[in-house]
Structure formats: C-alpha cells, structure tokens
C-alpha cells in the first residue's frame, strides 16, 4: 500500500503548484461574493471577505507543510546532535543531557509554545525554529539508545583502535546504523509539527492573518460555525489527511526497521 506516500506527495505537489492551480489569489477580496456556500465558481465557498476558500487552502498547505517539514528537520538535527553526544560520551555528559531532555519532556509542549509565541511574536521562519526546538527530545532519546546499543557491539572500539577520530566514529560508523530509527522519529515530528502549527494558529498566536494557514482559517471559521459551516470543513480535513498520511508512512518505516 503506497497510498499514504502518494497522498503526501500529492499534497506537496499541490502546495508547490499553488500559484498555478489556485483559481484566485488567496488574499483577493471580493465583497460582492461574501459568505458564499460552495459552488462551481468557489468549490469550498468564500469567507466573510469574499476570499476563495479553496485557493486559501492551497496556499495554507504551503505554510503548514513548510512548518511541518522544516520544524522536523530542526528537531531531528538538534535531537541527533544532543542524543548522539550523550550516547557516545556517556558518564556525566550523558547524565546532564538526559536530565535536560526529561525536563523539556515534563513541560507540556503546546502551552509552552503558546507562551513562547505570545512573548516572541515569531515570523514563520522563527515559528519553525520554535516548534523544532520544542521537539528534539524524542529523537535525542532514540539516538542515544541506539548509540548505547551500538557502542556495546564492539565495532566502535575497533574503529577507534584503527585510528579513527571521535567525529569520524560518530558520523561514519554510528549514525548510519541509527538512520532508520532517526527516520521514524523525524516522520513523527513532521506530523506533530503540523498539528502544533495548526493549534497555535487556531489560538491566534501562530501564523498571523492575512497569510492563510489551515490553523488560522479554522480560527476564523470558529466565529461563523452556525452560518458558514463550510469554512471549518476543508482546512480541518486537509490537516487530518496530512497527519494521517505522515503517521502511516512513519508506521511503515517503523515496521521496516523492526524487520532488520
């Protein structure tokens, strides 16, 4: 079943091609077409400013996927660095880094990010970094555990005895062996990043209007649930479609990792 990968690839393609595919400009206001129910001209309807919801969903995909993918990259890179050093160095370094990991895991992630977003008023790149550094802990734990197991396997000692430096052992010998586990944890971080961005934007502290993101479209929809329910349907359905396909890809990767 390659369906999840196809769906995810389709979403990325739609996001990249948004300027070509979108029937309207996402911020084009048309006051004669306000609050229109879905029709042939506006397949997902229009909002209270007459903006086309379908076009905004497409442009919103750019923001959501950008935040999801790049925040996962930040989370993965910092997690690999911290977990790798902890697992390789062991001893006091390991103890300190793992206590820091535990501390970060004890702070509820969404509330922490909500406060950070209010305090720092981040742009989209800053939001990516924030969500990324709030998500390094899982990868760090996985990498540390892998490195500890691999370190006991003996080939690290062999490489060291053959004259390889610490950096070389880490990057050339340990990291490739932990690659599958890292891939699984980064996939999970993509889904989490998308959910976190949409939640932050839903609470009005993430991606700020007039830029469209799936989360802030739902924030806007909340006020008009009884009169324009279509505003709430499409953005949420797209979030769900994205997170489900990413989780299924992660599941497949994890199953593959178990076999090896």
């Amino acid at each position, binding site marked *: 079943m390659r369906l999840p990968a196809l769906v995810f690839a389709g979403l990325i393609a739609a996001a990249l091609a948004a300027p070509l595919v979108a029937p309207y400009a996402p911020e084009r206001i048309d006051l004669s077409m306000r609050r229109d129910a879905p029709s042939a001209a506006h397949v997902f309807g229009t909002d209270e400013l007459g903006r086309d919801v379908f076009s905004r969903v497409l442009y919103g995909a750019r923001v959501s996927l950008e935040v999801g993918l790049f925040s996962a990259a930040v989370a993965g890179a910092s997690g690999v660095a911290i977990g790798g050093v902890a697992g390789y160095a062991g001893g006091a370094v390991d103890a300190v880094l793992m206590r820091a990991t535990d501390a970060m895991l004890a702070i*509820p992630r969404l*509330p*922490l990010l909500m*406060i950070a977003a209010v305090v720092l008023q981040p742009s989209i790149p800053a939001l990516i970094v924030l969500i990324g550094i709030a998500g390094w802990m899982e990868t760090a734990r996985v990498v540390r555990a892998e490195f500890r197991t691999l370190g006991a396997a003996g080939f690290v000692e062999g490489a060291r005895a053959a004259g390889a430096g610490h950096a070389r052992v880490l990057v050339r010998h340990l990291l490739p062996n932990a690659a599958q586990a890292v891939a699984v944890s980064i996939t999970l971080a993509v889904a989490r990043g998308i959910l976190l961005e*949409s939640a932050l934007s839903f*609470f009005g*502290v993430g991606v700020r209007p007039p830029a469209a993101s799936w989360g802030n479209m739902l924030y806007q929809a909340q006020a008009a*649930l009884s009169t324009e329910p279509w505003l709430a349907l499409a953005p949420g359905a797209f979030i*769900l479609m994205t997170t489900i396909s990413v*989780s299924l890809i992660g599941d497949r990767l994890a199953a593959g990792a178990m076999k090896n």
Partner: protein
Amino acid sequence: MGDPVSPRFLARRFVQAVPLLFLVSAVVFLLIHAAPGGPLAIYLANPNVRPADIERLRRALGLDRPLWQQYWTWLWAFVRGDWGYSFSDGRPVVARIVERLPATIELVAVALACALALTMPIGIGAAVRRGRWFDRAATIASMAGVALPAFWFGLLLQMIFAIGLGWLPSSGRATPGGGGLVDHLQHLLLPTAVLAIVLASGWSRYLRGSMIETLSQPFVAAARARGVPERRVVLRHALPNALGPLIALVTVDAALLVSGAVVTESVFAWPGLGSLFTEALARRDYTVLMAMLMLSASAVVAFNLAADVAHAIVDPRVPAS
C-alpha cells in the same frame, strides 16, 4: 524480594525529580523574561500608561534587579506557595487556579473513565482478532484519532450536535440561571467525547501491542493446552500481564487532572484550568501563565513517578529498587 516498591527507590526518584523541576523552572522563567520589554511589555504598548508608572511598577515588581536575583526570589516564593498576583485582575494566582480546579477535575476524570471503557474492549478485541476486520477497523480508527486535531474535532461535534441537530449545548458548564443534573451532563458530553476519544486512540494501540506480545508467551499456550477456556485465557491469564504498560500510560495522562485540557476546554468554553490558561494568554497575564506551566510540569513529574510505582506494583518483573 518483599516489598515491590522499596522506600529507597521512592527516595531516589524523588531526589532525581528536584533538579528536573529546577531546570523546568529556569526554562519557564527565562522564556517569560525573554519578551522585549519584559513581562510589562503589554503596558509599554498602551498609550494610557505613563512611563513614570511603568518605572514604578518595574521597581515594585523587582524587575530592575539582576535576572538571577529575580529568578531566585520568584523560585523561593513559588516553593513556599506564594505564587503572586494575577496581572489582569489583581487577585492571588493561587485563588484563581483553585477556583478552576473542580471543573477540570470533573471533565478529565469522566473523560479518563470513558477512555478506559473504550480502550479495554477495543485493545483486547483487536489483539485477539489480529489481522481480521475488527483489528483493521480499530487500527484505522485509532490512527485517525491520534492524527486528528482535537480542536477541529471539537468544532465538528459542535456543528453536528449543537448547531445542526440542536441536541446539546455548544459550550459552557451549565445553562446560566438554569441548571440541574441533566443540563450539567448535557454540557459535559461533547468535551468528554473529544478528550476520551483522543486518549482512547493512543491507549488502545498500546494495549493491543502488549496483548499480542503476551498472548504469544509460552504460559498462555500452556494454559490453552491445559484446556482452560479461551475467554478465561485472554481475560484472566493474559490481560493482567499485559496491563502494566497501559496503567503506566494512563497514570501519565492523568496529569491532565492538574494541568487542564487546554485545547478541549477552550473550544467548549469549559471553565477549567485549560480555559484559564488561554484567557491568561490573551491578556499576557504572565504570573498566571508561569504558575500554571510550573504546576503542569510538576504534575507530569509527579504522575510519571506514580506511573513507575504503579507499574512496579502490577508487574513484579519491573525492577523497583
């Protein structure tokens, strides 16, 4: 071996939790003070507040002192239970939190119970019928539940049951002026559904996994060979051995009792700690936000400790010393 949970184990875990909360408090404190203009930034933007007043407030709140001194003062006061006064209404933070606690405990306790009631049949059933349609359906449902944005799920339920069908109220804890038990339960139903379904999705996957593992153990085959009825094999022999990880997970999630379900409560305007958090966020009420984040983190640490203890009591294979 004697006592499954030795006092030494408890003492060591307790001592480990102290530096953990120390680190947490430093992160929380530095974050709040990272705001340009510090915690008073909201007044700086207000043209009705004179610079002299801000200066006076700054001195009164001790914000003119070095950062480490402020941190130390705050932490020491926090540990003694002096959590300061709310920026938005001037009342003690502790009072604001305590008055919201009952609503959160009610919602979360009912949701935890409902989530368990969903998890047991789904998790066990999926493990027993592994690979068959029930398992597949349960797997798809639980994957969707985990991937579902809780706030959107809440909006959908409001649209269907409150606005569309008109069966249930869309928000709040009781009809103003009215009330009574039925009214109360009607308000409770939708937020409970959101929270319980999200929790049960994660839990049932977990229970399914540990049940499948346990059912493949030799002692289960031995019980079957002795002619023990299948129902008894599953429920009396396998289940108790598979419950350990689930109990640990449920205990960790029970920290929501003290931290509040931020998303669910806010969507349904349920007047608990989660709503207090988003209200404080909208008003930049930093004393309330700091206290709540510290409280949540302490709850997570405490409930994690409780989960380890519970796991050790239920499953003698887990070393607790």
